[in-house]
């Protein structure tokens, strides 16, 4: 019982994308802004989950890549290197950063790893404040590249789709199998020929790339950035909340989580100007206590997903069907 056939699923997916691509021409500018911010959050949530979900290493500092990508983009743009070069520069800087921190930080496990990386956000925020000649300090930087809503919208949509594809392909690959075996039992995975450091590093960098590009796009869209806009605690923890709420370890989880929270944010935030962090905190507590697997692993969702043929057990499935399953 595989549910709906693959052809129909792909056609459905393409229709949805076409609709989303068409939307800016018929809806308000406000809605388009809401959407591209949703895409950016989704990119962050999914890219966080590449390391966090598949290997279990919860990098609470994932948005470091977002911040570095954005700041590098801004710095290079101010040197008149143009849109594309600045974006690529942001990506390169983030990848180098990931490589640099991986060596000491992958010696930590579990909560220490999580917290140390959160500390990186705080550190980068401090550096952004202190290194005035480079980053403009608390005053921030202006981006001299003109902003066009449609360009931002379509580039963030494209990046989002690519990120979804990336996470999906990883999940189905041998590489992904190595990652989840690290999550299950890192020492035993090691005993079966997997060098955990390389795989974790690869997952980290693969997650860093979309995040850094998203940072560049976001900086471009904001036109003016400062430490809070790219390296604040909220930007750091909201994608993690989204991934955990939706369900970690499977690409549908962060997608769902980011949709859910973005919508809730939109409806509730205007009525409640304070206590945003507190609400995220409460959500995290509730997930931790009652739903650590996230929404996609609740009974209701599991039933819907299996009817659509979208269960997690897509990865490695024996074609020889025997009794029992």
């Amino acid at each position, binding site marked *: 019982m595989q549910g709906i056939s693959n052809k129909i699923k792909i056609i459905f997916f393409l229709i949805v994308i076409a609709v989303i691509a068409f939307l800016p021409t018929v809806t308000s500018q406000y809605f388009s802004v809401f959407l591209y911010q949703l895409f950016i959050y989704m990119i962050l949530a999914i890219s966080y989950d590449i390391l966090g979900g598949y290997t279990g290493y919860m990098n609470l500092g994932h948005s470091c890549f977002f911040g570095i990508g954005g700041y590098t983009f801004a710095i290079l743009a101010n040197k008149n290197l143009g849109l594309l070069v600045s974006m690529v520069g942001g990506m390169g800087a983030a990848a180098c950063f990931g490589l640099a921190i991986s060596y000491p930080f992958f010696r930590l496990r579990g909560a220490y790893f999580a917290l140390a990386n959160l500390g990186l956000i705080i550190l980068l925020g401090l550096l952004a404040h202190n290194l005035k000649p480079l980053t403009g300090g608390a005053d921030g930087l202006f981006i001299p590249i003109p902003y066009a809503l449609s360009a931002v919208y379509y580039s963030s949509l494209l990046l989002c789709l690519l990120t979804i594809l990336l996470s999906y392909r990883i999940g189905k690959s041998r590489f992904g199998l190595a990652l989840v075996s690290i999550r299950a039992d890192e020492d035993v995975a090691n005993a079966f020929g997997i060098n955990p450091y390389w795989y974790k590093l690869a997952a980290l960098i693969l997650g860093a790339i979309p995040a850094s590009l998203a940072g560049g796009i976001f900086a471009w869209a904001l036109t003016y950035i400062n430490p809070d806009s790219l390296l604040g605690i909220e930007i750091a923890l909201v994608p993690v909340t989204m991934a955990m709420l939706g369900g970690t370890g499977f690409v549908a989880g962060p997608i769902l989580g980011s949709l859910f929270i973005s919508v809730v944010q939109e409806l509730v935030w205007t009525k409640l100007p304070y206590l945003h962090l*507190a609400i995220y905190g409460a959500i995290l507590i509730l997930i931790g206590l009652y739903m*650590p697997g996230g929404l996609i692993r609740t009974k209701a969702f599991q039933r819907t997903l299996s009817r659509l043929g979208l269960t997690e057990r897509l990865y490695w499935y024996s074609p020889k069907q025997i009794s029992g399953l």
Partner: protein
Amino acid sequence: MGFLQIVTSGLLLGGVYALAAFGLSICWGVLNILNIAHGEFLMLGALAAYGVYALLGINPFFIVLAIIPIFLAFSFLFEKLLIRPIRGRTETEILVASILVTLGGALLIEDVTAFLWGKSFTGIPYSMISLQVGGVVIPLIRLLILAFILALTWVIHFYLKRSYTGKAIQAITQNREGARIVGINIIRISMITFIIGTSLAAIAGVFYVVLYSMTPYMGLSLTVKYMCIVVLGGLGSLFGSFAGGLILGITESIIGYYVGSDWSPTVAFFALVLILLLRPQGLFGRK
């Protein structure tokens, strides 16, 4: 400001750090959970001290006495509501759940506090006379705090070595399975350890606010700092956390003066990276 002054003020800061880091270390050792909300207890301790001082104007040591009952109750509730329910799960599940719950708790506490009290509150301007020691001016209050912390350290040391609970804490930290086999009630000891650990953080908070100003959002960066200290001193070494705290305090003070106060919060962080690269088991830890 002379070098000696910098070092003594660093020592004092270090003492406060050591106290809080030690609290985190015993919680980690016994519960096997890193409490991301640990820094919040320090912040709340500071806040409570500020409030009590505003109301009663008494000296910090009495403030400590006054707020202890509140914090015992608060820690008890925190443990019961948030930590206890996730104990029974498998190891990977506990890890994820504990990060979620303690991080969520930290955010909740920070934001609600900021909402209720406003964005920042300054330090307690509690002053006594200043002493002149060898050409250096040291406010008496600082010496007294340092003395208090040292005395408290001594009491803790005694407690760990002599009392049943203290020995149980050490046993569990060193060998969890062994402790269980010997019949130690890990759940009860965990509860007590958690309360002690977080209360130490709260006490540290009282002293912190006498010396420096606080904001409700400091909690997370403080927890990161204490985590750095615990790793620096060596996971599993209770003494190491203490020593690490002192070292960090002094280093921060020195860097703060010679390089700039904007840079002193970064010290803990660079120390962490350095230790991880050079000696991952920490200064005093076992491999």
